[in-house]
């Protein structure tokens, strides 16, 4: 079999999935994080424990949930707990190994904005907001940030800081009282950035086949630091691609299934 063709999104998802280890307890958000975490479960990490902030612990969905609280997450979970409990006893309680985060903006220290573009009081674009992210960012033992790379997203200065990465870098996070270690990697559709020792500034450490380093630098809103040796990330395997595409296909079929309305209309 030759190297299969794949999209940058698929490369990003596969690269993110590989970050998880078997048995890892992972707090998952919706979207690419959810796809990556479940792909890990279907490939090299069958015993990864997935926790969604809806309170579903150890859930094993067969399709990707559209929302954080789809019924299948509850039905396939080891336990379903309340939202106050998931945030206090489990996340704040230090029971989470890894958190998967996304955002609308990221800065060079891995701080995230998911709140507003523009001024908070008179925003240009009001985003959904922080949700569970601030505490995932603070309390998970480490986090992985997944987002598509562009100069619009990778900005020199956040319009609003919703979740802490390394704050101002150089150990400022550790001094803040945040319990987790912060972002271990930022996985994009162009490569992988990791905090540099000491400064904690995000640095390009891994690249993908067919993506030039200058391309990654150009898609970054600040002068991106590049590691001395940038590793090449292996392309998705045939098996990874097949499982990811199956997962997406199952998901599309499930979410497009005929509306439940017909059945409900028969109710009194």
């Amino acid at each position: 079999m030759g190297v299969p063709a794949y999209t940058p999104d698929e490369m990003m998802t596969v690269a993110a999935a590989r970050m998880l280890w078997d048995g890892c307890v992972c707090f998952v958000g919706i979207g690419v994080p959810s796809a990556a975490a479940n792909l890990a479960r279907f490939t090299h990490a069958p015993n990864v424990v997935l926790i969604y902030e809806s309170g579903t612990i150890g859930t094993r969905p067969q399709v990707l949930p559209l929302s954080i609280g789809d019924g299948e997450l509850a039905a396939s979970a080891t336990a379903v707990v309340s939202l106050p409990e998931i945030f206090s006893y489990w996340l704040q309680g230090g029971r989470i190994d890894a958190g998967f985060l996304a955002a609308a903006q990221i800065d060079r220290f891995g701080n995230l904005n998911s709140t507003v573009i523009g001024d908070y009081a008179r925003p240009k674009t009001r985003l959904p907001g922080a949700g569970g992210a601030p505490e995932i960012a603070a309390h998970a033992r480490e986090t992985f940030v997944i987002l598509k790379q562009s100069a619009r997203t990778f900005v020199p200065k956040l319009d609003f800081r919703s979740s802490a990465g390394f704050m101002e870098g150089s150990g400022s996070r550790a001094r803040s009282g945040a319990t987790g270690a912060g972002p271990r990697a930022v996985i994009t559709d162009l490569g992988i950035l990791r905090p540099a020792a000491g400064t904690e500034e995000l640095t390009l450490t891994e690249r993908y086949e067919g993506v030039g380093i200058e391309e990654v630098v150009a898609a970054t809103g600040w002068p991106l630091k590049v590691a001395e040796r940038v590793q090449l990330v292996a392309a998705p395997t045939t098996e990874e691609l097949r499982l990811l595409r199956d997962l997406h296909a199952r998901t599309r079929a499930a979410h497009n299934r005929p509306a439940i309305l017909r059945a409900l209309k028969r109710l009194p």
Partner: protein
Amino acid sequence: MEIRTLRDAIARYVEDGQTIALEGFTHLIPFAAGHEIIRQGRRHLHLVRMTPDLVYDQMIGMGCASTLTFSWGGNPGVGSLHRLRDAVEHRWPGPLAIHEHSHAGLAAAYCAGAARLPFAILKGYVGNDLASVNPQIRSINCPYTGERVATVPAINPQVTILHAQQADRAGNILLRGIIGAQKEAALAARTLIVTVEEIVDVLDAPMNAIVLPHWVVTAVVPVPAGAYPAYAQGYYERDNAFYLAWDDIARDRKSFTAWMERHVLGTRDHAQFLGSLPAEAPERSEA
């Protein structure tokens, strides 16, 4: 506890200017109750909800609210709540004050409300800007270690409205599945209205089930499919296609208003609302 129609319960207990919470984290969202509040034209409500979702998008777009306390205001898995955005970005149909929290902070505030404590503590709001835009987020020193912890004031809605699977004839309520902060929102409130899929003789409740006993329930309202287009575990699934379609409906003020006039204001109750919808939700292009 009393059993009422939805129209009666909203007419009797929900008043202009109140602080009210329609809770339900993705699951068991009291959509029918939200629609009835819109039909009865309530104004100046302070809406509280962790995840505003489509029901608050509708209430905000129809001008019911003047304040929103929340922690994540999106269309789950789809994108923006366009009516919420329009209110915040362009003050349409009116200005909307927002009190923004993280999930952990708002959950803790409900817990304090349920426990009748004036505030809650959490390790939270570290290294982010939320406290700078929400003066309710403060901090306090641990009297033992000196460590600084964040505080949020208790939330005690005047009315909390939930949707649940079952009530028995005494008014005991069973919730099953993803339960969010519903129990806390219920116990934090002065008045608790619960719409239910059905009233049964005996609750199908295991020993450690989530049950709200009848004497904390103000009114039980039978509303089959009352969480549609959200879901009720064991009864019907989430209509994901509707959530996808809402993105188009709500993006534009005119299409939003037309939809609300036809399907909510133009219907008498939830059964009529369901009847008014096309049997298949409009297909959404796979963008």
